[in-house]
Structures are given as structure tokens and as C-alpha cells.
């Protein structure tokens, strides 16, 4: 298992990919790690199911 911010590295080496992100509470004091999506790597990088995953892998945030 590797943990990386380098998406190309993840896309090259992993059979399965999980996208983790952070949710910040309304008042901004509490930060919670969440598993957003977990799927086979081609799906994550071609047609992710969660909009947050899509925004991340396309570079729209993060």
C-alpha cells in the first residue's frame, strides 16, 4: 500500500485507489478525515463516482 499526493504515481502502480479528504466543521474548528471513494484505479481516474474525487483528480482543488 502506498499513500501519496502524486496522482500519476498512484495511477501507475495501484490496482485499487482510495481518495481521502478532510471535512471541516462549519465553525472551522474541527477537521475530520473521510474516505470519499474507493474503487479500481481506472475508474477513479476516468469516471469517478463522487464529484469531490473528480474535482481532485482533475486538479480543480487540492
Amino acid at each position, binding site marked *: 500500500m502506498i499513500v501519496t499526493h502524486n496522482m500519476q504515481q498512484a495511477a501507475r502502480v495501484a490496482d485499487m485507489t482510495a481518495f481521502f479528504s478532510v471535512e471541516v466543521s462549519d465553525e472551522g474548528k474541527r477537521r475530520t478525515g473521510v474516505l470519499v471513494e474507493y474503487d479500481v484505479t481506472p475508474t477513479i481516474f*476516468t*469516471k469517478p463516482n463522487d464529484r469531490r474525487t*473528480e474535482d481532485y483528480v*482533475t486538479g480543480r482543488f487540492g
Partner: protein
Amino acid sequence: MRVTLQEELDGLEASLQEEGDLVKRALRGALNALGQQDEELADEVISFDDEVDRCYVGIETGIQSLLARQAPAAIDLRLVLAILHANLHLERMADYCVTIAKLTKLVRVESPDGTLLEAFDEMGSRAEEMTTVALRSLADRDAEAAEGLVDLDELIDRANRRVVQHVLSLGADPNLREWGLRMILVSRCLERIGDHAVDIGEQTAFLVSGEFREFTVGD
């Protein structure tokens, strides 16, 4: 957000739309040349293909560069692939216009069959409309409108079959029969232009859904 990537994608999409406009101009020119048996206009249509080819190469080169530098993913990757395929389809559509122009020059008759010319005008208008719908649905990400191209294509296919039947009934005049055989090829070109428009529609559906499927089985 990677602004440069978005700008490049926008630029490629704009170029594709421009290429579509060029194809429609080529189609209209080819049909006018055919209807008026205008060899000069046919030559212009043939030369005009260089402009379409330049646009095609520009898009192809842009995609190559973008893939090398930007590593697009998800919706961006699907858009790049859709543009790549649509670009090729448009270039092929323009080639069919060139073929129509060349066929126009090849055989001339004193009085071309009016029924056939009317059929070609109808097929050409439908092919033009299909090109417009294909490119608009891609721009609008409208998979439903894209799939509607199948119905329009059926109309061209029917007209194509009518043309073949009509040519078979043209009679014994060798010159007219040779012209008629060439016109079957013209009809086939128009029919294929419609098929390519449907193929572009399939790319729109792929872009929206993430899954590629043929709109009709066996075509």
C-alpha cells in the same frame, strides 16, 4: 484549478467547432458544384480540403501536447478523447465532400436527372443538419440530442436506398447510366457523412456517461 488546462481544453473545443463549420461549407460547395455541374466550384471544394486538414492537424497536435504536459483525468480525459475522435470524423466527412467534387468533374451529362439532384439536395441538407446537431450536442454535453441523430440518419439511409433504386431505372443511355453509377457513389458519400455525425454523437454520450456504446448495433 489548472487554468492553463481549462484554457487549452476550451481552445481545442473551439477549434473543433471551427472545423465543423469548414466541413459544412465544403458540403454545401460540393452539393452546389454537383447540382450546377460547376467544375470550377468542384476544384475550389477540392482545394478547400487543405483548410480542413490544417485545422485537423492543429487539433491533433494540440491534443498530443496537452496529453504530454497536463495528464488530464476523468471528465477532462474523456473530453480530450472525444475531441480526438470527433476531429478524425470531421476530417473524414470533408474527404467525402472532396470525393463528391471529384465525381462531379468525372462525368458530365447534358441534362442531369432532376429526381436525383433533388434527392441529393435533401440528403445534403440532412447531412448538414446532422453535423450541426452533432457539434451542438457535444458543446452542450447533451447526450439525448446526440442520440437523436440516429433518427436523422435513418432518413438519409432511406434516401440513399431510393437513389439506388432510381439509378437502376435510368434506362439504356450509356452516358446516363455511367453518370448514374457515379451518383450512387455520391449518395454513398452523403450517407457516410451522416454516419460520421452519428459517431460524433456517440462520443458526446461517452463524454457525459463515461461509457462508450454504439447507438445502433451493426452499423
